[in-house]
């Protein structure tokens, strides 16, 4: 049995049902899925409103780095069966899911939650995607604060 790994940058809607089905094997009993969505209203730190986000990606590298994130997950949690990592790009409005990380395993107590959490944290560190925030008073690129090390 080969364990499925799905990774893609897409402009299409993220279909959770479809992705979950693709990473469910006959031996699978549990899935942890993380999705991020565009916030229309942000309270923490600098409170502000968002009209939409415009996502851009260095697509071939981003897909290679998603594959690397999946490989890192498998190295850390050998229990993981299927992995799906999808980043949606383009102009995305509040409440829209923009990113998904899903991990499946036979049981819920062998790392699925931790693996999904690790996956989204790593994606936000090393996968080359950027978002420009467009608000009522103008637009601004959002920058992360992580500097990859050698061999990342």
């Amino acid at each position, binding site marked *: 049995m080969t364990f499925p790994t799905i990774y893609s940058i897409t402009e299409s809607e993220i279909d959770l049902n479809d992705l979950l089905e693709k990473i469910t094997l006959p031996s699978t009993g549990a899935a942890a899925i993380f999705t991020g969505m565009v916030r229309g209203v942000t309270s923490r730190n600098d409170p502000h409103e968002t009209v939409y986000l415009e996502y851009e990606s*260095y697509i071939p590298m981003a897909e290679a780095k998603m594959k690397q994130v999946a490989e890192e997950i498998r190295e850390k949690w050998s229990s993981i069966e299927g992995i799906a990592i999808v980043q949606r790009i383009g102009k995305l409005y509040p409440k829209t899911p923009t990113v998904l990380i899903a991990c499946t395993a036979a049981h819920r107590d062998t790392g699925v939650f931790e693996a999904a959490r690790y996956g989204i944290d790593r994606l936000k560190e090393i996968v080359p995607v950027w978002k420009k925030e467009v608000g009522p008073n103008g637009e601004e690129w959002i920058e992360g604060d992580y500097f*990859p*090390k050698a061999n990342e």
Partner: protein
Amino acid sequence: MNKIKILFFATIKDKAGTKSMDLEIPNELTIKQLKEKLANEYPNLKESMKAILITINREYAFDDAVIPLNAEIALFPPVSGG
């Protein structure tokens, strides 16, 4: 000479005023030397060079890396996906 392609993303793309350019550079140039060259020729990029990520052929690269022939180089700010 080494013909390379440079890609710019996000804020760096805006400052460079272009998504990509083809460039001829001396053989054996390092990333550090390329950054200096770009900072001199494109003053808009100078400030950004302090906190920039650079890749060679889609892998993160650092100051002392030597740029291989026909490399695809990318310059961009820390990522902010998700």
